[in-house]
């Protein structure tokens, strides 16, 4: 499996304006909310600067002028504005917060829906973990960028601009001096933030290595003990944990250096204010309140600059997240319904492969000029070594994949002319690794046919011999199966997935090593039950257990993508070919497995 997606870029390779525009356009359908929070945060930002200015007025017009009335007015103004501020703060947190959740909800929905349309080949080459982190963490990063990122940017840039304007009003010469220092602060902040983010990324990577090391040593603890590896493992772990130590320590002190550094640069401006402002004050060019206001503006400037730098530095990784999310949304399903595709109503039909070539990877053919005809209602068994092409034949019949060349006909109709849904909803398939879903046993069986009555579910469980063990459970059908069914044994899961397929009353019944973990006794009971189910239906069975396939109409031995032998059980045994040797070897093993059981 080529893992095309596995190595993921942490950074977007270049600043992509297109991606940015596409991210912003996510807000389009909620533009009122977005406009609302931007307006409110803008108001908050301007007011923040204005409050400092009122502070100046209190000193100049109140205290220095010894004007109590004016003082009361100013405090009143401050209070009134603060009351407005309270509502604005409530508003922007509420709007942006909920919009952020909404954007994430929308993105996840879109991705999930798209995943339902993508073809099998996509899932084959894309690890589940990759898909998971697109839907979970990357979507979060994007929604954060369009809400909190936008808020921080708006607030900090407006805050700096208004502060500068007020400073210009108070004393334009001194304001110009301060203005000269702002770019220096921004530059420092951005450089720091970039490095800090880089360090923390390293820490995250090492952290997951440490978790993996714990995981391995705990799952393998018995063999670690048996091989007396404790000391060596500790040494190896200690190397990793030291690496983590150094990385986190570096990240931490770099962060600790960041604020003081910008602060010190800011206090260069403070020095200028004291010196120049002091001189101006003496000559009457600047009031005491003016000096106070300048000091406050400069001291406060640190925060908007820090926020701005943070958003800027994390922007690149958010863009990379967005690119990955969009790549998922944009990938095109390889198998789709043709425009004229129709639903034939049933696929109780003959299936024929004609000159089918198939490969998963170019240049590595799995099937080559493969021909096969299955009559309606026939039961077929596919046997042969792993990798011979048995599962591929099934994948093609289910149209999980389509032939690379050649055709597959259902009653003479190229199946590409039928809708995918019309084929797949009429096939009942039981896989060797039975996937169940969290929920009860009853719900899992019902998955086969959503409108089934409890009686029908019970009948399906009875036919597939799942009933006995279900009845022995405390809560019967209500018993929870756990995540992925992991509270049940593999054998029990196979029985349930069998019942699920039986319930679906398919036109074609497929079992891919469906009973490999079920003991022989139960299996022979299942066979009796399934006889009724299989009657009149086409069935295709892959099994290594030969008792399972003795009864079928036709056995095909598949090797290297070709049918090397075919016939019924007796004729193949007589032929003493591949089937015969498989049979004798396997038979012995099958029964030795039951040794344990017969002891009881």
């Amino acid at each position, binding site marked *: 499996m080529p893992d095309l997606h*596995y190595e993921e870029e942490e950074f977007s390779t270049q600043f992509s304006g297109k991606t940015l525009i596409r991210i912003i356009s996510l807000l389009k359908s909620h533009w009122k909310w977005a406009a609302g929070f931007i307006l409110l945060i803008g108001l908050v930002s301007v007011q923040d600067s204005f409050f400092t200015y009122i*502070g100046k007025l*209190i000193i100049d017009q109140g*205290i220095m002028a010894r004007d109590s009335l004016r003082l009361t007015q100013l*405090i009143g103004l401050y*209070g009134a504005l603060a009351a407005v501020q*309270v509502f604005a*703060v409530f*508003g922007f947190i509420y709007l942006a*917060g*909920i919009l952020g*959740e909404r954007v*994430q909800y929308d993105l*996840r929905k879109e991705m*999930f829906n798209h*995943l339902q*349309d993508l073809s099998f080949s996509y*899932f084959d080459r894309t690890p*589940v973990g990759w898909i998971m982190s697109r839907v979970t963490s990357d979507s979060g990063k994007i929604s954060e960028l369009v809400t909190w990122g936008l808020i921080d940017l708006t607030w900090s840039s407006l805050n700096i601009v208004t502060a500068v304007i007020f400073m210009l009003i108070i004393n334009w010469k001194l304001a110009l001096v301060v203005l000269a220092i702002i770019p220096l602060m921004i530059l420092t902040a951005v450089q720091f933030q970039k490095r800090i983010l880089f360090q923390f990324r390293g820490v995250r990577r090492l952290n997951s290595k440490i*978790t993996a090391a*714990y*995981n*391995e*040593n*705990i799952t393998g*603890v*018995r063999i*670690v*003990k*048996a091989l*007396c590896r*404790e000391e060596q493992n500790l040494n190896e*772990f200690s190397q990793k*944990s030291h690496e983590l*130590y150094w990385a986190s320590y570096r990240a931490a002190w770099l962060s*600790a*250096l960041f604020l*003081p550094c910008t*602060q010190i640069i800011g206090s260069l401006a403070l020095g200028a204010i004291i*010196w120049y402002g002091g001189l101006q004050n*003496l000559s009457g060019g600047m009031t*005491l309140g003016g000096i106070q206001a300048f000091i406050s503006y400069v001291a406060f400037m640190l925060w908007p600059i820090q926020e701005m730098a943070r958003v800027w530095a994390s922007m690149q990784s958010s863009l990379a997240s967005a690119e990955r999310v969009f790549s998922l949304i944009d990938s095109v399903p390889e198998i789709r319904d043709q425009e004229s595709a129709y639903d034939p109503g049933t696929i109780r039909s003959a299936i024929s492969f004609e000159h089918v070539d198939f490969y998963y990877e170019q240049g590595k053919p799995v099937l080559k000029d493969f021909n096969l005809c299955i009559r309606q209602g026939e039961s077929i068994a596919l046997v042969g070594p*792993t990798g011979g092409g048995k599962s591929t034949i099934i994948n093609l019949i289910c149209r999980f994949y389509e032939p690379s060349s050649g055709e597959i006909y259902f009653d003479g109709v190229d199946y590409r002319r039928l809708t*995918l849904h019309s084929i*797949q909803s009429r096939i009942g*398939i039981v*896989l060797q690794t039975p996937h169940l*879903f969290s929920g009860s046993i009853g719900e899992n069986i019902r*998955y086969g046919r*959503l409108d089934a009555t409890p009686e029908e579910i019970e009948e399906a469980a009875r036919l597939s011999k799942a009933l006995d063990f279900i009845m022995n459970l405390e809560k019967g059908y209500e018993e929870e199966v756990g995540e992925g069914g992991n509270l049940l044994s593999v054998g029990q899961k196979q029985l349930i997935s069998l019942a699920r397929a039986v319930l679906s009353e398919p036109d074609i019944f497929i079992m891919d090593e469906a009973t490999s973990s079920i003991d022989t006794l139960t299996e022979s009971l299942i066979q009796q039950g399934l006889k009724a189910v299989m009657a009149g239906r086409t069935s295709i069975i892959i099994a*290594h257990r030969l008792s399972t396939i003795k009864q079928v109409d036709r056995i095909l031995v598949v090797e290297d993508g070709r049918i090397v032998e075919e016939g019924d059980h*007796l004729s193949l045994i007589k032929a003493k070919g591949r089937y*015969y040797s498989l049979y004798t*070897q*396997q038979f012995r093993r099958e029964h*030795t497995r039951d*040794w*344990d059981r*017969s*002891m009881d």
Partner: protein
Amino acid sequence: MEELFIGKVRPFNNSEPLPRRPCTAVFFSFLAAVNSAAFLFVKDKFMSELEKKLDLRSSLRLHGLAGLWSLMKGFQLIYAGAVVSLAAAALCRTATFLLLRFFVDEVLAGGFLINHLYIFASAFLGLALFEGGASFLRGKLSARTAEGLILRLRNFLFDHIQRLSFRYHDHTHTGELIERVTSDVDTLRRFYSEQAVEIGRISALFIFNLIALVSLNTTLGLLSIVFIPFILLQSIWFFNRIFQAYERYQEQEARLSSTLQESVTAVRVVRAFARQEFETEKFERENWEKFQRGRGFIKLHSLYWPISDTLCTVQMLLIFYLGARMAIAGVISPGTYMAVAGMVIWIIWPLRNLGRIIVQASSALVSFKRVAHIIKEEPEVLSEGLKAHPTRLKGHIIFNNVCFEYNRGESVLHNISFAARPGELIALLGSTGSGKTTLVNLLPRFYEYTGGSLVLDGRELKDYPIHNLRRHIGIVEQEPFLFSRTIRENIIFGAGENLSEREIEEAAKAAAIHDVILSFPEGYDTLISERGVTLSGGQKQRIAIARTIIKNPSILILDDATSSVDSETEALIQEALSKLMEGRTSFVIAHRVQTVKRADKILVLDKGRILQEGNHRSLIREQGVYRKIFNLQSRIEEEAVQGGLNA
């Protein structure tokens, strides 16, 4: 310290001579900064000593905050340095306001050093430098403490867990254990590096500024904290709820992602039943619920911030107003007003974060309890026992009425007695739960037998140091565990590093895996993991056999199961196993007739007792389970072959 800040209420336009107090404050902060700078140069040599194993088990008897303190053993001095630095930084902040007051009242209004304003400009700059330096040191020293002691804790936990007994691991969920050693440990780390320091910083700012305020004007000082209890209480109240809401939100996030994972993993089932719509609806429900919970969480936030803003603003405006009134009345100077207005901000606003931090810090106590729980478990003692142990065991084993109880009163093995002479092959038969696995697990002392005696080469098994014993015992499990390393590393995993290439290849050849390994593009350096090759069950088993061959044990324990392997591979594994058993006392949990037939001694176990004992020839003559099974199996086998021939 108080006397530093005793400033009398001074009348307007007072021109007292230069007071020394602000300068003393500056000097003090300077000293503190220099002191803490010394810690900067306490270099890594010191650290590596601290990282050395500290017996955490004996030092962790305390609970709660005392326990958190004792976990810091060895770092306490460095941490004290961080505290001194944060205090120094806070002092600098206060000093800045006092300096401002002095500048306004004495210089601008009083004319002191009026032609040398640059002195004051550089004094402000100097204070900023000290403050910056001190807060950098605070960050650095607290990081050193937190990271250092967490490094020590991580290593300790790793080692401790691999030394805990089978019993412990039988009862513990891997996921839960990993959760504790990763996220709980990280919670602790954040407690030391962030929360504790932040609580200290906020307290220091509060205390120093309050003292300065009170000493400038007692009335203003006391009035500046009237709303503080409300600010603090509502902050804690809200954050308790915010964290609960956040947890609910995170729970839903976890549910959403497991729904997603299930759906993507089971994509074949979904497609096979054409259930895309059903899945979409299921995901939609979880996604919508997540959105709803997110809203709840956001609503709390959107209430908290404006409410706490209001409280803080009211408190602040109260002081502004009263302060300004006093200044107008001439009770305080304009400079004092400016200092008060600055300091009151630093008393109020940091406090509203305190609620959040206190709530977070309280989760550290929970994490500490959970981690301490693991540490309290008794580990195996690996090296105590006989001093003069033999370098090579003969493998002569006598079980004499050996009993084993898993839990008190829950007997698993009853009075097991038999002997295995050096080099013999002992086959164990029995159904699941009959005690075969438990019996062989007694030999490497994975479990300690609870009664009777077990003698190995003439000495009681319990006298052998565990490590020494395990070095002589090789185990091949039914489903072998391989590590995500290269194939070479996996083969030499139990045998040390200094093995020649030839030895490794020979072991691989003996295990019939050499050719398979060479067929991989990177040969022996092929990585076994998700990212490397995926090995089949049979290949894994043969690598495990090679791993055991290279260990060269005197005693072998084999779980002879090949159910997941195709017939050709099975034959290869059998051959490899036969080679491995030559000349070693071997215990085989048998599944195959051939192995049993060859055994020197067959033990048929049932419910923890030996039901039958003998070799194939003697047992086949006895009435009993063995004969029944053997007859059944050979009949089936004959029928199969004959049936085929006759057909």
